[in-house]
Structures are given as C-alpha cells and as structure tokens.
C-alpha cells in the first residue's frame, strides 16, 4: 500500500510547475545572475555593446563619497526604523491587549496607514510637513515657536522620513505582536498573579521571553524593509536636501536612469543585495543567541 501511495504522488506531472518556474527563472533568477556581469561593464543603458571593465566600478565605489553617504544613510534609516517601529508596535500591542472595548476598531486604525502606497503616504506628509501651511508648523507657531523646515533641513529630513515610515509601518508589526501575545497561555499569567508576581516582573520574565519568535520576525522584516525604502523618498525629498536623504535604492535609480551609468548602478545594486543578506544573517544569529540566553 505504501508503495502504491508514493506511486500516486509521483504521478503528479512536473509540467504543472513549469509556468511558474519558467517565469521565475527568466525574470528573477536570470536578471539577478546577469547583474553580476552588468556590474563589470561601463554600460550606459543605450549603446548596443557593453564594455567590459573588470572591477573598475567597484574600485570607483570605494572612492565615491556620494556612495558612502548613501550607504550610511541606508544603514542608519534601516536600523533607526527597525528600532522605532518595533518600540511603537510593541507598545500599541501591549496597550490594545489591556483595552476592554473596541479593540478591533483600534487595531484597524493603527493598521490602516499600511494600506497606503508609498507615493500617497509621501504626499500626504509633504503637505502636513509643509513649511508654511503644514500642521506641524501651524501648531508650533501657535505655541510661539519658530517654524521648522522638516523636509528641507539636512539635519532633520532623514528623521522626518523615519517618522513617516514608523507611522506607516508600525501597525503591521503590531499585528504580529498581538498574535504573539495571544499565544501566551493564560494559565501561566494567572499562576503568576496568584503567586503575587509584580506586573513588571511578569512582563520581563513571562511576556518578553514568550514573544521571542515575534521579535525575530519583526526585527528581520523591519530591517530588510528599511533597506528597501524608496517610494517615500521619491515623493518627499528626492534624496535631498543635497544628498541628505539619498539611500542606496534612490541612488541606484538616479545613477542608472538619470545619469545613464547602468553598469555602475548595478554595482551599487549588488552591494544593496549583499547588505540585505548580511543584515538578515547577522540579525538571525544575534536573536538566536538572545533566545538561548532567555
């Protein structure tokens, strides 16, 4: 009977997988592999021939101050975003866990910004952060404080983008934390209550360790999504003022499509890919250690 079973399963024809595998290979894997070659050329995006130049793009990257600036911005944005998003998301989840009424409604409201596109999000906040009529400065002026140039001041613009991204993203991670909280067996918490364990102790000794899985998922996702931020930057600052908010994704776009340096742009794209890999690997390792310690 067992033999016959495997026989039946084996008869599932392989061709059923072909449409998806073919497309995935042709339009994801193949270009991803080709990008290694592209990054070794000085291709401008137009000429029919690609000039092979070896590692010169990578040598140029090492001395390119603009690249390093975007590199720093990207890492800063991703790390700050991941930390803040998770703090806000966890706080919201913990509060909602205690609220007695209209929980679903509140959860939906916190999640709602996640449904907006990056472009729409960007323009709503461009208006809200406008120097003359934006609500932030209107409120500040009411309090007799001078207007702040939220998107035009190089020291503030990146923070403004992070702020907007937290608003947009926190609700998503909140839902994962809520699921984590719901999966904590209530008898553990009740037993702790009976033993007279203080709420703070209960939080750090029961809730936090039980949420380890949610932490791993959320930190990984938020870091990797942070590395990919693009639409909001296009809508809000175009990488400016100067290059203050230029990230790797935005740099790839301008270098490749405005300046016609597609070989060079591909080299930056490969660095971005490596960065994504390194981030998720290192981060998973760190969390594993943390999980074991707990």
């Amino acid at each position, binding site marked *: 009977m067992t033999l016959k079973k495997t026989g039946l399963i084996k008869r599932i024809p392989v061709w059923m997988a072909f449409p998806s595998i073919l497309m995935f290979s042709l*339009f*994801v894997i193949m270009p*991803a592999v080709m*990008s290694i070659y592209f990054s070794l050329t000085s291709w401008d995006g137009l000429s029919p021939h690609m000039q092979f130049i070896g590692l010169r793009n990578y040598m140029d990257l090492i001395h390119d101050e603009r690249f390093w600036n975007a590199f720093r911005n990207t890492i800063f944005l991703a790390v700050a975003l991941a930390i803040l998003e998770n703090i806000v998301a966890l706080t919201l989840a913990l509060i909602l866990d205690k609220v007695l009424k209209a929980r679903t409604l509140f959860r939906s409201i916190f999640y709602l910004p996640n449904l907006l596109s990056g472009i729409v999000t960007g*323009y709503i906040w461009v208006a809200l952060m406008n120097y003359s009529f934006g609500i932030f400065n209107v409120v500040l002026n009411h309090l007799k404080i001078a207007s702040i140039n939220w998107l035009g001041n190089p020291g503030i613009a990146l923070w403004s983008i992070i702020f907007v991204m937290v608003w947009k993203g926190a609700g998503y991670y909140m839902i994962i934390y809520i699921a984590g909280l719901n999966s904590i067996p209530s008898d553990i918490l009740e037993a702790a209550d009976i033993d007279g364990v203080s709420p703070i102790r209960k939080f750090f000794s029961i809730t936090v360790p039980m949420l380890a899985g949610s932490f791993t998922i959320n930190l990984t996702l938020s870091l990797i999504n942070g590395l990919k931020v693009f639409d909001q930057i*296009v809508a809000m600052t175009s990488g400016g003022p100067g290059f203050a908010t230029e990230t790797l994704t935005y740099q790839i776009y301008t270098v490749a499509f405005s300046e016609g340096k597609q070989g060079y742009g591909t080299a930056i794209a490969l660095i971005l890919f490596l960065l994504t890999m390194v981030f998720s690997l290192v981060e998973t390792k760190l969390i594993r250690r943390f999980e074991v310690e707990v």
Partner: protein
Amino acid sequence: MHNSKKWKTGDYILFFIVAILALAFFFPMLFSILSAFKTNGEILKNPIGLPKRINFSNFFYLWNKTSIPRATVNSFILTTVSCFFIILVVPMSSYVIERRSGKFSSFFYPLFLAGMMIPFQAYMIPLFRELRVIGLFGTMLAPVIIYISGASSFGTLLYCSFIRSVPKEIEESAAIDGSSPFKTFWKIVFPLLKPCTASMLILQGVGIWNDFLMPMMVMPANQPKTINVEIFSFIGEFQVRYDVLFCGTLVAIVPVIIIFIFLQKYFINGIMAGAVKS
C-alpha cells in the same frame, strides 16, 4: 467576557490614551480625505478645518482634465489580470514541489526561498534590458509578467505550507477513481486552499495596486500609467494644486480601504502567514 467586567479608573484612562493615539494615527488620512473636498485656498489657509461646503469641483477637474481616470482603469486591469494569472500558475507549482519529494523539489524549494531575498532594485537593470531584447519593454504585458514572476517565490512557499496540511488520502482516493492529478488538484485540493488564496490575493493585489517604480519604468511611454505613477507626475504639473492632488490620492486609497473593510480577517491572516513564511 472582558466586557462583563466592571471598568476601573485605570481602564478608563487606558481607553482614553488609546483613543487619542488612534485619532493621531488617523489624522493624516482624515486630512487627505477632507482636503479632497476643499479648494486649494482653503487647504493653504485652514489646513485642519472642515471644508466650508462640500466641493466636488476637484473631482470634475480630475475626471476631465487629468490622466487619472485612464490610470485608474489601468491599475484595475493590471491588478486583476496579474492576480488571476498568479492564482492560475503559483498554486500548481507549489502542488508539484510539495507533493513530489525528490530532486525536483529539493532543487527548486531553496531557489524560491533565495528569490524572496532579492530586492527588486538589485536586478531591475538587467531585467529591463532583457525585456527590451525580447520586445516586451513598454507594453502592458511587461508589468503583468514581472508580477507573476515576483509572486512565484513568495507564493510558492506560502501555498506549500498550506498544501502540507491537506490530507493525502483524499487525493489518493480521487486517483483510484481515475481522476488525473491535474483535475484532482483543481477540483479537490485547490478549493481546500481558499484561505491561502484569499490571503495571497489580498497581499498581491494591494502590493500591485500600490506599486510605483516598476510600472513607471516599464509601461508604455507617453500614456497614462497606473494611478500611483500619475499621482507622482502630478507634482511636476500641478505644483501648488493640493486640492487636485488629494483628490487623486483619495481615488487611490478608496478601493483598498473598501476591500480592507470587507475582508479584514484575510488581511490579518495574510500578515501572519506572510510573516511566518519569511
């Protein structure tokens, strides 16, 4: 059961804090919705207040003078067609990979896993060149193909995890009754995967509707593209027309919100399923 409990002072304070937070979170959306019904002067002078009177002239302007109507139609077509083909193609491949153990699965499963890690920007330049070479660049077909290919990696993993929980006995008895594996899949297995399909449709549908960079690059030039791309090109044209801009964003937001209101459960399931798979 919580509701039956008597509220203490602390409960009221907590509820009040959450309500304030929710208002703060909702405010930007409320602002954009209200602004769609204001005149540009009103937005500049009184950004927070209600519109003096509900003003539909922005919508007439949007309808008659901009490319938003065409772009909205494009977005609808792109989203539905791509989703249709994703659901046609992806579950089938997952079925093969999940049910056929052996070299075939052990080769492709990790490949799909790796595919999920690659950011679009990392391979878009060779991809655009490839599309040019085969003559698809600048056609409506190009984004559809890219969406199906992109959804393959994540979608296959998602469907695999759901197919795993379908008992094999049903398929075996169908096979004994003479049903071909192809037929068995679509008639028996696929209907059991409804929750997965719903989550997949929502995740992909919202993602495609909201996408920006790729459609801007590959769709036919000198024609309206998608709604998000046209909103973006607004800013150059109507630098100070915030009224028209917010009218456009409203058109982009409303379909997603309506779907969210009706299919909330599947959104939450989709997030959980997606998160666990990643």
